[in-house]
Protein backbone atom coordinates (compact mmCIF):
# COMPACT_ATOMS: atom_id res chain seq x y z
CA UNK A 1 0.00 0.00 0.00
CA UNK A 2 1.35 3.39 -0.90
CA UNK A 3 0.20 6.77 0.30
CA UNK A 4 -2.38 8.08 -2.18
CA UNK A 5 -1.55 11.46 -3.66
CA UNK A 6 -4.38 13.91 -2.88
CA UNK A 7 -4.44 15.47 -6.34
CA UNK A 8 -4.65 12.02 -7.97
CA UNK A 9 -7.37 11.07 -5.53
CA UNK A 10 -9.52 14.09 -6.35
CA UNK A 11 -8.99 13.60 -10.07
CA UNK A 12 -10.35 10.08 -9.66
CA UNK A 13 -13.21 11.13 -7.36
CA UNK A 14 -14.43 13.84 -9.73
CA UNK A 15 -13.64 11.91 -12.91
CA UNK A 16 -15.36 8.77 -11.69
CA UNK A 17 -18.33 10.72 -10.35
CA UNK A 18 -18.90 12.68 -13.55
CA UNK A 19 -18.01 9.75 -15.80
CA UNK A 20 -20.38 7.38 -14.01
CA UNK A 21 -23.16 9.92 -14.24
CA UNK A 22 -22.46 10.44 -17.93
CA UNK A 23 -22.62 6.68 -18.55
CA UNK A 24 -26.09 6.61 -16.97
CA UNK A 25 -27.45 9.88 -18.34
CA UNK A 26 -26.46 9.45 -21.98
CA UNK A 27 -29.18 6.88 -22.57
CA UNK A 28 -31.82 8.21 -20.24
CA UNK A 29 -31.51 11.89 -21.11
CA UNK A 30 -30.16 11.99 -24.62
CA UNK A 31 -30.66 8.77 -26.55
CA UNK A 32 -34.04 7.80 -25.14
CA UNK A 33 -35.64 4.79 -26.72
CA UNK A 34 -33.18 4.21 -29.52
CA UNK A 35 -31.72 0.76 -28.91
CA UNK A 36 -28.02 0.01 -28.60
CA UNK A 37 -26.73 -2.37 -31.26
CA UNK A 38 -26.87 -6.01 -30.15
CA UNK A 39 -23.09 -6.48 -30.27
CA UNK A 40 -22.56 -3.56 -27.89
CA UNK A 41 -25.13 -4.87 -25.39
CA UNK A 42 -23.54 -8.30 -25.64
CA UNK A 43 -20.16 -6.89 -24.57
CA UNK A 44 -21.57 -4.58 -21.90
CA UNK A 45 -23.25 -7.55 -20.26
CA UNK A 46 -19.83 -8.98 -19.41
CA UNK A 47 -17.93 -5.90 -18.18
CA UNK A 48 -18.58 -6.61 -14.49
CA UNK A 49 -17.85 -10.35 -14.61
CA UNK A 50 -14.62 -9.65 -16.49
CA UNK A 51 -13.14 -6.65 -14.69
CA UNK A 52 -13.99 -7.66 -11.10
CA UNK A 53 -12.35 -11.11 -11.11
CA UNK A 54 -9.37 -9.73 -13.07
CA UNK A 55 -8.89 -7.25 -10.26
CA UNK A 56 -9.44 -9.76 -7.45
CA UNK A 57 -7.31 -12.66 -8.73
CA UNK A 58 -3.82 -11.18 -8.10
CA UNK A 59 -4.97 -9.86 -4.70
CA UNK A 60 -5.99 -13.40 -3.73
CA UNK A 61 -2.98 -15.24 -5.09
CA UNK A 62 -0.30 -12.73 -4.06
CA UNK A 63 -1.72 -10.84 -1.06
CA UNK A 64 -0.09 -7.53 -0.15
CA UNK A 65 -0.24 -8.42 3.57
CA UNK A 66 2.18 -11.35 3.10
CA UNK A 67 4.39 -9.34 0.71
CA UNK A 68 3.08 -11.36 -2.21
CA UNK A 69 3.67 -14.82 -0.71
CA UNK A 70 0.89 -17.30 -1.45
CA UNK A 71 -1.08 -17.66 1.77
CA UNK A 72 -3.27 -20.68 2.61
CA UNK A 73 -5.82 -18.94 4.89
CA UNK A 74 -6.42 -16.20 2.31
CA UNK A 75 -6.68 -18.66 -0.57
CA UNK A 76 -9.14 -20.83 1.37
CA UNK A 77 -11.17 -17.77 2.40
CA UNK A 78 -11.42 -16.71 -1.25
CA UNK A 79 -12.65 -20.16 -2.31
CA UNK A 80 -15.20 -20.22 0.52
CA UNK A 81 -16.45 -16.76 -0.50
CA UNK A 82 -16.98 -17.84 -4.11
CA UNK A 83 -18.47 -21.19 -3.08
CA UNK A 84 -21.02 -19.64 -0.73
CA UNK A 85 -21.76 -16.90 -3.27
CA UNK A 86 -22.45 -19.42 -6.02
CA UNK A 87 -24.50 -21.68 -3.74
CA UNK A 88 -26.68 -19.01 -2.10
CA UNK A 89 -26.45 -16.06 -4.52
CA UNK A 90 -26.28 -13.80 -1.50
CA UNK A 91 -23.55 -11.17 -1.30
CA UNK A 92 -23.70 -10.60 2.45
CA UNK A 93 -23.74 -14.31 3.33
CA UNK A 94 -20.77 -14.71 1.04
CA UNK A 95 -18.76 -11.86 2.65
CA UNK A 96 -19.50 -13.23 6.12
CA UNK A 97 -18.53 -16.80 5.17
CA UNK A 98 -15.30 -15.51 3.62
CA UNK A 99 -14.50 -13.46 6.69
CA UNK A 100 -15.16 -16.36 9.06
CA UNK A 101 -13.05 -18.69 6.90
CA UNK A 102 -10.22 -16.14 6.88
CA UNK A 103 -10.13 -15.66 10.64
CA UNK A 104 -10.49 -19.39 11.29
CA UNK A 105 -7.70 -20.06 8.83
CA UNK A 106 -5.41 -17.42 10.31
CA UNK A 107 -6.17 -18.76 13.79
CA UNK A 108 -5.60 -22.44 12.92
CA UNK A 109 -2.85 -22.16 10.31
CA UNK A 110 -1.35 -18.75 10.97
Amino acid at each position, binding site marked *: MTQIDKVDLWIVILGLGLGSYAIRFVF*IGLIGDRQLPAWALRHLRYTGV*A*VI*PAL*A*APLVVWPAATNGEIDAPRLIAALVTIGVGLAF*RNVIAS*VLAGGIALYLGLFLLG
Partner: protein
Amino acid sequence: MADGAPFVLVVVPFGLLFGVVAAEAGLHVLESLTLSLMVVAGASQFTAVQLLSEGAPTFIALFAALAVNLRMAMYAAALAPHWQGAPLRQRAFAAWLVQDQGYACAMIAYDKNPQWSASEKLRYYVGTASLICPIWGIFTVVGALVGAAIPPEYALDFAVPITFLAMLAPMLRTGPHMAAALVAVTVSLLLAGLPYSLGLLIAGALGMITGAQVETIAIRKGASV
Protein backbone atom coordinates in the same frame (compact mmCIF):
# COMPACT_ATOMS: atom_id res chain seq x y z
CA MET B 1 -40.53 2.32 -1.30
CA ALA B 2 -41.37 -1.07 0.21
CA ASP B 3 -39.81 -2.94 -2.72
CA GLY B 4 -36.64 -0.99 -1.98
CA ALA B 5 -36.39 -2.22 1.62
CA PRO B 6 -34.34 -5.36 0.89
CA PHE B 7 -31.64 -3.19 -0.73
CA VAL B 8 -31.01 -1.53 2.58
CA LEU B 9 -29.83 -4.85 4.00
CA VAL B 10 -27.16 -4.96 1.33
CA VAL B 11 -26.27 -1.29 1.31
CA VAL B 12 -25.62 -0.89 5.04
CA PRO B 13 -22.81 -3.45 5.36
CA PHE B 14 -21.39 -2.50 1.97
CA GLY B 15 -21.31 1.18 2.83
CA LEU B 16 -19.61 0.32 6.12
CA LEU B 17 -17.09 -1.88 4.38
CA PHE B 18 -16.32 0.74 1.78
CA GLY B 19 -15.81 3.35 4.48
CA VAL B 20 -13.45 1.04 6.37
CA VAL B 21 -11.45 0.09 3.27
CA ALA B 22 -11.20 3.70 2.14
CA ALA B 23 -10.01 4.74 5.61
CA GLU B 24 -7.39 1.98 5.57
CA ALA B 25 -6.18 3.33 2.21
CA GLY B 26 -5.77 6.75 3.80
CA LEU B 27 -8.90 8.55 2.52
CA HIS B 28 -10.45 11.19 4.76
CA VAL B 29 -14.13 11.03 5.63
CA LEU B 30 -15.02 13.86 3.26
CA GLU B 31 -13.18 12.17 0.39
CA SER B 32 -14.95 8.83 0.94
CA LEU B 33 -18.31 10.55 1.28
CA THR B 34 -17.86 12.60 -1.90
CA LEU B 35 -16.92 9.46 -3.78
CA SER B 36 -19.93 7.54 -2.46
CA LEU B 37 -22.43 10.31 -3.18
CA MET B 38 -21.10 11.10 -6.65
CA VAL B 39 -20.54 7.57 -7.88
CA VAL B 40 -23.19 5.51 -6.02
CA ALA B 41 -21.70 2.24 -7.27
CA GLY B 42 -19.78 0.11 -4.78
CA ALA B 43 -17.78 -2.10 -7.12
CA SER B 44 -16.24 0.80 -9.03
CA GLN B 45 -15.47 2.70 -5.82
CA PHE B 46 -13.64 -0.32 -4.42
CA THR B 47 -11.80 -0.65 -7.74
CA ALA B 48 -10.66 2.97 -7.72
CA VAL B 49 -9.47 2.92 -4.10
CA GLN B 50 -7.73 -0.44 -4.50
CA LEU B 51 -5.82 0.61 -7.63
CA LEU B 52 -4.82 3.98 -6.19
CA SER B 53 -3.51 2.34 -3.03
CA GLU B 54 -1.48 -0.10 -5.15
CA GLY B 55 0.16 2.93 -6.72
CA ALA B 56 -1.40 2.39 -10.17
CA PRO B 57 -1.36 5.46 -12.44
CA THR B 58 -4.31 7.80 -11.97
CA PHE B 59 -5.75 7.30 -15.43
CA ILE B 60 -5.62 3.50 -15.08
CA ALA B 61 -7.50 3.68 -11.76
CA LEU B 62 -10.07 5.97 -13.34
CA PHE B 63 -10.38 3.93 -16.51
CA ALA B 64 -10.74 0.58 -14.71
CA ALA B 65 -13.33 1.99 -12.29
CA LEU B 66 -15.32 3.45 -15.18
CA ALA B 67 -15.09 0.11 -16.99
CA VAL B 68 -16.69 -1.59 -13.97
CA ASN B 69 -19.52 0.93 -14.29
CA LEU B 70 -20.09 0.37 -18.01
CA ARG B 71 -22.80 -2.11 -17.13
CA MET B 72 -24.82 0.93 -15.99
CA ALA B 73 -25.02 1.91 -19.66
CA MET B 74 -26.83 -1.35 -20.29
CA TYR B 75 -29.26 -0.70 -17.40
CA ALA B 76 -29.80 2.87 -18.54
CA ALA B 77 -30.44 1.73 -22.10
CA ALA B 78 -33.03 -0.75 -20.82
CA LEU B 79 -34.74 1.75 -18.50
CA ALA B 80 -34.72 4.71 -20.92
CA PRO B 81 -37.65 3.61 -23.12
CA HIS B 82 -39.82 3.13 -20.01
CA TRP B 83 -39.17 6.69 -18.87
CA GLN B 84 -39.52 8.32 -22.29
CA GLY B 85 -42.00 11.20 -21.92
CA ALA B 86 -41.35 11.97 -18.25
CA PRO B 87 -39.87 15.45 -17.63
CA LEU B 88 -36.14 15.72 -18.31
CA ARG B 89 -35.42 17.06 -14.81
CA GLN B 90 -36.92 13.93 -13.23
CA ARG B 91 -35.11 11.64 -15.65
CA ALA B 92 -31.83 13.43 -14.90
CA PHE B 93 -32.37 12.79 -11.19
CA ALA B 94 -33.35 9.16 -11.71
CA ALA B 95 -30.24 8.63 -13.87
CA TRP B 96 -28.08 9.33 -10.82
CA LEU B 97 -29.84 6.45 -9.02
CA VAL B 98 -29.35 3.83 -11.74
CA GLN B 99 -27.68 0.80 -10.17
CA ASP B 100 -27.88 -2.99 -10.08
CA GLN B 101 -30.64 -3.70 -7.58
CA GLY B 102 -32.81 -0.77 -8.64
CA TYR B 103 -32.65 -1.92 -12.24
CA ALA B 104 -33.46 -5.54 -11.40
CA CYS B 105 -36.36 -4.52 -9.20
CA ALA B 106 -37.82 -2.08 -11.76
CA MET B 107 -37.66 -4.52 -14.65
CA ILE B 108 -39.72 -7.04 -12.66
CA ALA B 109 -42.27 -4.38 -11.65
CA TYR B 110 -42.57 -2.98 -15.21
CA ASP B 111 -43.23 -6.48 -16.53
CA LYS B 112 -46.01 -6.96 -14.00
CA ASN B 113 -47.56 -3.53 -14.56
CA PRO B 114 -47.47 -2.79 -18.28
CA GLN B 115 -50.28 -0.22 -17.90
CA TRP B 116 -48.06 2.22 -15.94
CA SER B 117 -47.31 5.57 -17.59
CA ALA B 118 -43.73 6.83 -18.01
CA SER B 119 -44.20 9.08 -14.98
CA GLU B 120 -45.51 6.23 -12.83
CA LYS B 121 -42.61 4.02 -13.87
CA LEU B 122 -40.13 6.75 -13.08
CA ARG B 123 -41.76 7.45 -9.72
CA TYR B 124 -41.61 3.74 -8.87
CA TYR B 125 -37.90 3.69 -9.68
CA VAL B 126 -37.04 6.76 -7.67
CA GLY B 127 -39.16 5.44 -4.79
CA THR B 128 -37.35 2.11 -4.58
CA ALA B 129 -33.85 3.45 -5.27
CA SER B 130 -33.88 6.74 -3.36
CA LEU B 131 -33.39 4.99 -0.03
CA ILE B 132 -30.03 3.80 -1.28
CA CYS B 133 -28.17 7.07 -1.69
CA PRO B 134 -28.47 8.59 1.76
CA ILE B 135 -27.89 5.21 3.45
CA TRP B 136 -24.87 4.51 1.27
CA GLY B 137 -23.46 7.92 2.19
CA ILE B 138 -24.20 7.68 5.92
CA PHE B 139 -22.67 4.22 6.32
CA THR B 140 -19.63 5.19 4.28
CA VAL B 141 -19.02 7.89 6.88
CA VAL B 142 -19.62 5.47 9.78
CA GLY B 143 -17.25 2.97 8.16
CA ALA B 144 -14.63 5.64 7.58
CA LEU B 145 -14.74 6.68 11.24
CA VAL B 146 -14.65 3.08 12.48
CA GLY B 147 -11.96 2.05 9.96
CA ALA B 148 -9.56 4.71 11.11
CA ALA B 149 -9.64 3.03 14.56
CA ILE B 150 -9.11 -0.60 13.48
CA PRO B 151 -5.50 -1.83 13.84
CA PRO B 152 -3.83 -3.73 10.93
CA GLU B 153 -3.71 -7.10 12.80
CA TYR B 154 -7.32 -7.72 11.83
CA ALA B 155 -6.34 -8.65 8.27
CA LEU B 156 -8.69 -6.08 6.77
CA ASP B 157 -6.42 -6.07 3.72
CA PHE B 158 -8.43 -9.07 2.63
CA ALA B 159 -11.81 -7.36 2.95
CA VAL B 160 -11.36 -6.00 -0.58
CA PRO B 161 -10.80 -9.28 -2.47
CA ILE B 162 -13.51 -10.98 -0.39
CA THR B 163 -15.92 -8.20 -1.28
CA PHE B 164 -15.06 -8.40 -4.96
CA LEU B 165 -15.55 -12.18 -4.98
CA ALA B 166 -18.81 -11.91 -3.07
CA MET B 167 -20.15 -9.37 -5.57
CA LEU B 168 -18.96 -11.54 -8.43
CA ALA B 169 -20.51 -14.88 -7.49
CA PRO B 170 -24.19 -13.92 -7.94
CA MET B 171 -23.33 -12.36 -11.32
CA LEU B 172 -22.07 -15.71 -12.66
CA ARG B 173 -25.50 -16.78 -13.83
CA THR B 174 -24.71 -18.40 -17.17
CA GLY B 175 -22.00 -20.24 -19.08
CA PRO B 176 -20.84 -17.11 -20.93
CA HIS B 177 -20.54 -15.25 -17.60
CA MET B 178 -18.41 -18.08 -16.18
CA ALA B 179 -16.25 -18.17 -19.31
CA ALA B 180 -15.73 -14.39 -19.19
CA ALA B 181 -14.64 -14.58 -15.54
CA LEU B 182 -12.32 -17.56 -16.09
CA VAL B 183 -10.53 -15.92 -19.01
CA ALA B 184 -10.26 -12.64 -17.09
CA VAL B 185 -8.73 -14.40 -14.05
CA THR B 186 -6.26 -16.41 -16.12
CA VAL B 187 -5.08 -13.47 -18.22
CA SER B 188 -4.87 -11.20 -15.19
CA LEU B 189 -2.63 -13.69 -13.35
CA LEU B 190 -0.46 -14.29 -16.42
CA LEU B 191 -0.03 -10.56 -17.06
CA ALA B 192 0.28 -9.48 -13.42
CA GLY B 193 3.89 -8.45 -14.09
CA LEU B 194 2.96 -5.79 -16.65
CA PRO B 195 3.47 -2.20 -15.48
CA TYR B 196 0.67 0.34 -14.90
CA SER B 197 -1.89 -2.41 -14.14
CA LEU B 198 -2.17 -2.90 -17.89
CA GLY B 199 -2.73 -6.62 -17.27
CA LEU B 200 -6.05 -5.74 -15.62
CA LEU B 201 -7.28 -3.77 -18.62
CA ILE B 202 -6.22 -6.47 -21.09
CA ALA B 203 -7.75 -9.20 -18.90
CA GLY B 204 -11.00 -7.24 -18.56
CA ALA B 205 -11.23 -6.63 -22.30
CA LEU B 206 -10.50 -10.27 -23.19
CA GLY B 207 -13.02 -11.43 -20.57
CA MET B 208 -15.73 -9.24 -22.11
CA ILE B 209 -14.97 -10.45 -25.61
CA THR B 210 -15.01 -14.05 -24.39
CA GLY B 211 -18.42 -13.58 -22.75
CA ALA B 212 -19.85 -12.03 -25.91
CA GLN B 213 -18.38 -14.74 -28.17
CA VAL B 214 -19.52 -17.65 -26.00
CA GLU B 215 -22.99 -16.11 -25.85
CA THR B 216 -23.10 -15.83 -29.64
CA ILE B 217 -22.05 -19.47 -30.04
CA ALA B 218 -24.56 -20.61 -27.41
CA ILE B 219 -27.39 -18.75 -29.14
CA ARG B 220 -26.41 -20.19 -32.50
CA LYS B 221 -26.66 -23.65 -30.96
CA GLY B 222 -30.14 -22.78 -29.71
CA ALA B 223 -29.39 -22.63 -26.01
CA SER B 224 -31.11 -19.91 -24.02
CA VAL B 225 -28.77 -17.64 -22.04
